[in-house]
């Protein structure tokens, strides 16, 4: 099997290599198209100025479309590029694959409330959901500089305003939602996170509408997906997009004053209470019980 990986980041390379070995097939070569340094694992590395679909398609056409599998992480640009490539080659594309079993690829649908299968075919294009596969490959390939100009011209690249947090890799996340009436009240959640050694995340309105927290704390399909051991959702009603992004967490706790809030259906432990009364008590009890 010959594989072409398309990635705009080095972060999920182990995920991709891990997924490929899960297929259990003899791998002849794994090439890569990227704009970053990724280190080991690939036979040929095509270094491009920008990861875009039309550029990858041009490359594939130039070097012959003899690949059996086109694959990348489920990042926005790899997804866009691989989907465009699939359209250009007229092959199927399946995004955000979470598993592989008996010749079938598995992905989530309906905001994580359902799954669907699709046969693993050759050739096809895939993006792989992060944090589910891991592997490495001891190959130090040659780097080929590609001098193609992308159709998409970057006028400006802006760092997202970020607090330097990585809730995706955090073991404990405290989520805040519209139950908080003012920005300053979020301090309670930060204190709780501090006591438990976690990070603070939030629902969509807190980041996108109110701008109280940076986008890198937004838990949702369009934001970050968390997969640690504990998530405490405070004052969050539980929109499907939010719940889907927290589904992989081991234990979920919900605190909400509305007993009928959907979040309780997706929680292991629920406390029906006014967060303004309950959270200070919880912090106080934790402080007195946690041995320093």
């Amino acid at each position, binding site marked *: 099997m010959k594989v072409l990986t398309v990635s*705009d*980041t080095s972060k999920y390379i182990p995920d991709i290599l891990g997924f490929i070995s899960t297929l259990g097939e003899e791998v002849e070569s794994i090439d890569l198209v990227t704009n970053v340094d990724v280190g080991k694992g690939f036979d040929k590395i095509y270094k491009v100025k920008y990861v875009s*679909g*039309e550029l990858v*398609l041009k490359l594939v056409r130039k070097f012959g479309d003899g690949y059996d599998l086109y694959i990348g992480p489920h990042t*926005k*640009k790899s*997804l*866009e590029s691989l*989907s*465009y*490539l*699939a*359209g*250009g080659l007229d092959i*199927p594309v*399946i*995004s*955000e694959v979470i598993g592989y079993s008996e010749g*079938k690829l598995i992905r*989530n*649908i*309906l*905001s994580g*409330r*359902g*799954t*669907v*299968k*699709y046969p693993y*075919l050759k050739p096809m294009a895939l993006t792989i959901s992060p944090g589910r596969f891991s592997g490495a490959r001891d190959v130090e390939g040659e780097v080929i500089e590609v001098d193609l100009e992308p159709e*998409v*011209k*970057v*006028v400006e*690249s*802006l*760092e*997202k305003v970020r607090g330097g947090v990585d809730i995706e890799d955090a073991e*404990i996340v405290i989520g805040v939602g519209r139950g908080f009436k003012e920005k300053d009240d979020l301090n309670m959640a930060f204190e709780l996170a501090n006591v438990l050694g976690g990070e603070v995340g939030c629902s969509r309105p807190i980041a*996108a509408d109110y701008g109280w927290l940076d986008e890198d704390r937004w838990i949702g*399909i*369009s934001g970050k997906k968390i997969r640690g*051991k*504990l998530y405490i959702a405070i004052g969050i009603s539980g929109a499907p997009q939010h719940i889907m992004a927290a589904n992989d967490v081991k234990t979920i706790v919900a605190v909400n004053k509305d007993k009928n809030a959907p979040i*309780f*259906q997706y929680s*292991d*432990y629920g*406390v*029906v*209470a006014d967060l303004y009364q*309950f959270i200070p*008590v*919880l912090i*106080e*009890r*934790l402080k007195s*019980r*946690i041995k320093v």
Partner: protein
Amino acid sequence: MDVGVLVKAALDVNVLRSDPTGRVAVENIPLVISEYDRNAIYEAVKIRDNTGGGKVYVYSVLTWGPMERKLKDFENVIREALALGGDEAYVVADRSINYSEPRYTARVLEYLIRSKGNPKLVLTGEASTDMTSATLSPYLAARLGYNIVSFAKKIEVGNGYLTVLRDADDRLERVRVSLPAIVSVTGEINSPRLPTLIQIRRAFRKPLEKYSLADIGLKPFLSRYEGYQVVTIKRKNIFIEEDSLEKAADKLIDYLVEEGVVKI
């Protein structure tokens, strides 16, 4: 300028229905307009009005069956798209594309775009709310030979080109692309208002043309998606009910220690 919008009648994720075997009972789940497609329509209307007029074409394919049971919801979604400011709608509903997949849906949309209005700018939501694959717009762009920019947070229209602020995960990029192009938009690009009663009434007088696959000369497709299963939620759903907040807090802490997620 003319702007096309791709609209999906998506399974309502808030009304999940399943049968006793755990299969998603797609036939019993209502269809609603895919959330971010509203943003796409709203943006298309804005662009049309800011560029001296033109038309907003709504394109859609019914991708869920059985057709007889979904047709009414599908038409309601298209009427909603027209009420939100679309001018004309061209749609395909056919028994043989019940349970479509993006690869096939793209073929139908490709035909509709080329033959019904042929707009040089096409917008859609960043992903559908039911399947969330986000693969359709780039796939279609490649077929049409259009440029693609996905996850747009802002669109400015120039003469024959666009400047788009796009989400690129860890950063934002302002990019410039020439038309023709497909742009997928995020939920943050604008805040669509609900259509007024007058807009809803007017929508019923706007052209809505519905075709079968035979009408547009395409062969039936067979989706390879299979095994739609409900995820069994393994959550414990334990409500902590104590007579004081202190007791409730202690009980919660006990549970979390038992789970091994908090150490005391």
